[in-house]
């Protein structure tokens, strides 16, 4: 029997088992699909957040809030001082009025309140864009502290501190996704192994007869291995479809609304979907091999 004959035989037998035992097969397919879906979604989310963080970090900003009474001349002076540093890419001056406008844009709900305080409600500030890669972190740190000690500077707000927190959050999310995905994938492999072991148990007499009349293990076990792989493939395809669908739902709502632009929804890559399917097939294969190790 040639390899292709064997393969076509295995496929036919495995297909028959799948169709005859569709109720059990569904269990395996669904657990594989669910685990891949959960793992995949978490990875996409954490990846999206991380890459937003990357983007922001590239254009890291520091805001120096000034005392409300600082004169325009003094502001300009400070601005020039700041610009002289080699790691500063640009500095923008935000007047009190501009600050109020921005605030009411971002939080329209509370804007009434601010409006009632009059013009002086929000202080003017300098928004400083940095290129953090041009300088050693400690040097930058020192520089920021010096900046904060200017009498006119009320407070220095360093975006990057917050970014670091978001980054940790993204890592946690990714870790959680990985752990959940791995646990679920383990469950999926177990389910597949159980389902295949059961199928083999249902047909134990036939298997015994095949052995007795001279069937090789390769020929007898092949269909079960292929059955596992097929279940994995189906599970993978299902979850790839579900991921694609969830993604398009998210994308339709517009990236701006996604957690306040907290994360950048990158275009879904085909590679990821193919990987999901491949992991499914691998899980099915593993389940099949585990079940075959002893029981069939």
């Amino acid at each position: 029997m040639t390899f292709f004959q064997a393969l076509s035989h295995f496929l036919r037998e495995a297909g028959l088992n799948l169709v005859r035992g569709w109720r059990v097969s569904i269990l395996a397919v669904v657990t594989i699909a669910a685990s891949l879906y959960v793992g995949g979604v978490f990875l996409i989310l954490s990846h999206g957040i991380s890459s937003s963080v990357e983007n922001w970090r590239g254009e890291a900003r520091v805001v120096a809030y000034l005392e409300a009474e600082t004169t325009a001349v003094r502001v300009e002076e400070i601005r020039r001082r700041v610009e002289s540093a080699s790691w500063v890419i640009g500095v923008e001056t935000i007047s009190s009025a501009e600050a109020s406008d921005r605030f009411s844009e971002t939080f329209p709900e509370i804007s009434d309140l601010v409006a009632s305080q009059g013009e002086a409600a929000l202080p003017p500030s300098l928004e400083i864009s940095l290129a953090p890669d041009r300088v050693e972190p400690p040097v930058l740190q020192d520089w920021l502290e010096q900046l904060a000690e200017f009498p006119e500077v009320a407070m220095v707000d360093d975006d990057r501190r917050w970014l670091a927190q978001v980054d940790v959050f993204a890592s946690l999310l990714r870790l959680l996704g990985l752990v959940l995905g791995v646990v679920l994938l383990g469950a999926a492999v177990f389910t597949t192994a159980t389902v295949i072991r059961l199928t083999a148990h249902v047909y134990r007499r036939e298997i015994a007869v095949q052995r007795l009349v001279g069937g090789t293990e390769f020929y007898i076990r092949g269909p079960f291995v292929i059955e596992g792989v097929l279940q994995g493939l189906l599970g993978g395809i299902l979850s790839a479809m579900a991921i694609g669908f969830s993604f398009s739902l998210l994308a339709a709502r517009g990236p701006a609304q996604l957690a306040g632009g907290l994360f950048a929804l990158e275009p879904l890559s085909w590679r990821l979907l193919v990987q999901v399917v491949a992991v499914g097939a691998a899980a099915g294969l593993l389940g099949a091999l585990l079940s075959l190790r002893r029981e069939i």
Partner: protein
Amino acid sequence: MIQFFDVGKRFGDRVALADVNFKIPRGQFVFLRGPSGAGKTTLLKLIYRAESPSEGQILVNGRNVGSIPKRKVPFLRRTIGVVFQEFSLIERRTVSDNVTYLPRILGERRPERRRLAAEALAKVGLDHLQDAFPAELSGGEQQRVAIARALISRPQILIADEPTGNLDPELSRDIISLFFEINRQGTTVILATHNPSLRRRGRDRILKLESGRLVEDRIMDPISAEDIPVALGPPDPVATR
């Protein structure tokens, strides 16, 4: 050629076979006799390695059956056609597919398999049932399908365990004639049976078991069909008793 050297087989503390010695030359026709529970099926299972001996050694065509690695067992079995006592058909496959299981593994294509199946089934009078499933057959029909399956690959050794238990006397005689015919073409045949009315021929061998021991080993007289006893004991090269 099949040789048993001091073979014993225990299941737990039940002794199924003890001190069995014999040698069956290629091309012989052997009747295996003995009451229910004597150990006939166990003896046959040892030959095609469905069981391993607890003691002693078994040579089949010069190979020590007990020491064949598990991986190679299927290839031993392919040289032996077996009619099992419990028929053992594959429920989910048609009669034709059951009969041609081995040719299929060996890569025979479908038309050729159909031809082979038709040929083998015709020999047992069942060519009209090619596409039936085992559950649709009568007991005797199932038994004959099992016989056809054993014949399909023209094995060097044919083992049949009570193959006429569910057949009427006429059919039984036909089946035995078929086995004789196959034997004439050079196949070694070992036939375990209770049926006392089977036709006898000269030069055929009778082995008789009782409670797991070989108690009789003789060759029938070619002229009178009377039986000539054969010396009991290990066949080759030395007698131990």
